[in-house]
């Protein structure tokens, strides 16, 4: 109990609060730039956390996650260009409301809904993570290996346009993790006698290359085809057009609660993503409404439905991450990387070994929500300006930030070279429709999968039939191909329809 209080108290230290606030501001700023998704914001922010305490570092990155959720809604509402995939559904009602001359009202509704959804899922995380971790502690390497196998298969089946391509991307990610020293015998693997590769490919270089540099290449390509159009919105005068009254917010309570429920449920399952939660919540809100035809014309309820759902995914995503060490999406996978950089292994043992950190993190999450609300409200005008910055300034600056970020993280220009190479791989993968999500998750989970498989094989004494003594693991292994087959069949059915 003492550790819990100590953890919560340390979260309220000035430095920690400052880093959480900085994270939220960075998240909103980057999330507002079209095309720059939360994982990219986290990838860029990771090098900024090297010199601070683990709590401040992870608190800052969670702040980035939360801030970028709302940031995505800014460009979705003002430019009809979602900053993130999760904000696509927000354009449906956010942009029409802004066009009606009420951009600030739309943004405020998005902000309040986002904070509401976030807070709800954080509460669920705080309440259920300890019992889940207690169960998870009873699992051995064989059970964890089976759980990792079904999780990565589930993510691959749901994330991309094709299950086969997603699995191929995941295998590619897994293969790249084997570069470096073998964990058991310390033999060099695919290092080509380069000393820099003995520790494997640096995760910051891989993540920033695959996400940011590939995105810059894509944006450069788009700038060749057409110039980015700025949409001018004339704002109506009058307080009622600029703010959301309590009455209006209260009228959306059911939609907000439903959205938070969808987001929490979907976020807790690895691989489903915030975009799915937002669209499901929007569809449910429309179905439940007395005036479904008003949806899509700038209805506040439409914004509430999507933003509460996509933001609720953030907190819920941390349930599998903190309790089982399994990331639910790319952002969570990058968080695992950040945990590792700070010498922390996410998973059930975290609750017994570092309870002060876990509870400090919970307190930081709640504080991040308060900061999101405060900074979002204060800086609404400033953050909206980020959207109107010319691409000619944004993307070259991002390139420079990536180069210096990777150099600061790894201290070598070789890592920057790896980042450029991974940028090319990321670009080609996007062009060919291979899921980057699956690749990154495969890359991040690779070492853990290898370790648990090695341990499992040794524990089973090279005897596959010994798996029958582990019913949970057996169930998971049997369920994996069935799940893949069912999802493939369902995709095929949808294509036919």
């Amino acid at each position, binding site marked *: 109990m003492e550790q819990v209080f100590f953890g919560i108290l340390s979260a309220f230290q000035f430095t920690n609060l400052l880093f959480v606030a900085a994270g939220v501001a960075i998240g909103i700023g980057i999330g507002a730039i079209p095309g720059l998704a939360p994982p990219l914001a986290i990838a860029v922010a990771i090098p900024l956390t*090297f*010199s601070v305490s683990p709590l401040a570092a992870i608190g800052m990155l969670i702040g980035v996650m939360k801030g970028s959720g709302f940031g995505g809604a800014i460009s979705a509402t003002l430019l009809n260009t979602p900053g993130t995939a999760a904000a696509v559904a927000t354009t449906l009602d956010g942009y029409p409301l802004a066009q009606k001359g009420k951009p600030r009202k739309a943004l405020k509704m998005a902000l309040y809904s986002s904070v509401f959804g976030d807070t709800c899922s954080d509460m669920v995380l705080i309440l259920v993570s300890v019992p889940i971790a207690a169960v998870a502690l009873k699992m051995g390497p064989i059970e964890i290996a089976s759980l990792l196998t079904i999780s990565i298969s589930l993510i691959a089946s749901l994330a991309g*346009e*094709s299950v*086969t*391509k997603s*699995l*191929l991307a995941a*295998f*590619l990610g*897994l*293969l790249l993790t*084997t570069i470096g020293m*073998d964990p*058991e*015998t*310390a*033999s*060099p*693997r*695919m*290092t*080509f006698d380069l000393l820099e590769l003995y520790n494997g490919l640096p995760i910051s270089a891989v993540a920033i290359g695959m996400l940011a*540099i590939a995105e*810059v*290449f*894509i944006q*450069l*390509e788009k*700038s060749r085809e057409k*110039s980015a159009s700025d949409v001018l919105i004339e704002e109506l005068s009058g307080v009622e057009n600029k703010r959301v009254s309590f009455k209006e917010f209260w009228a959306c309570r059911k939609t907000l609660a439903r959205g938070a429920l969808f987001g929490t449920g979907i976020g807790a399952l690895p691989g489903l993503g915030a975009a799915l939660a937002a669209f499901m919540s929007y569809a449910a809100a429309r179905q439940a409404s007395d005036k479904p035809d008003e949806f899509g014309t700038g209805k506040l309820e439409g914004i509430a439905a999507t933003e509460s759902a996509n933001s609720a995914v953030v907190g819920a995503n941390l349930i599998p991450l903190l309790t089982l060490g399994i990331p639910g999406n790319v952002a969570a996978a990058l968080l695992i990387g950040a945990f590792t950089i700070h010498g922390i292994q996410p998973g059930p043992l975290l609750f017994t070994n570092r309870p002060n950190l876990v509870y400090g993190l919970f307190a930081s999450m709640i504080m991040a929500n308060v900061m999101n609300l405060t900074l979002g409200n204060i800086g609404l005008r400033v953050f909206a300006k980020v959207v109107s910055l*010319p*691409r*000619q*300034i944004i*993307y*070259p*600056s991002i*390139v*420079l*930030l990536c*180069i*210096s970020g990777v*150099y*600061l993280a790894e201290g070598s*220009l070789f890592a*920057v*070279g790896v980042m*450029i190479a991974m*940028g*090319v791989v990321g670009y080609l993968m*996007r*062009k*060919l*429709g*291979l899921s980057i999500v699956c690749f990154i998750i495969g890359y991040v989970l690779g070492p853990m999968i290898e370790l648990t*498989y*090695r341990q499992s094989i*040794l524990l089973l004494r090279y005897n596959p039939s010994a798996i029958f003594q582990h019913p949970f693991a057996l169930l998971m292994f049997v369920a994996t191909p069935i799940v893949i087959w069912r999802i493939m069949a369902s995709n095929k059915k949808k*294509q036919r329809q």
Partner: protein
Amino acid sequence: MQRSNIVLGIFFFLFGLILYFWLIPSQVEMGEATDALSPRFFPNMATIGMIFLGPLLSFLSWRQTRQLSTSPEQNGKTKKQSNQNGNTDPLNLKNVAYLFLYVGVLSANLFIISIAGFMIGAPLTVISFMLLNGGKTGPIGMVLTAGISTAVIYMMAWGVFEIPLP
């Protein structure tokens, strides 16, 4: 997309074969510990996955291409769906040529940074990417953006992280 998937499947199959029969045996040394699992075990597992899934992707895509060619209505629906998903331009020779240009510019700038240092190489990187972006901000805008972004990053690296840049 279906045709490129067929090629992609073949590529993964061949890539997997090269890895399994040549690269892994030549680049993964066998450990001395006899009771440990071979260091080649996990790379081989990932490679076998590719060797198996590559032809499967090609076969499924080939089958879908055949179905689409026999049903023009379905073909139109698929194209429409692809557009709605917001897919980027397909990979063509022009895009690959530009990709080489971007990578070349980035690598050249990295080389300049390694030779002349960050303070000279970084502004050149920003200016070259602003030019690649169309250079619509004008020479003063370019110099200002390059100077300010370089100075901010340099000051952050030294002042906040106390890490020297090249």
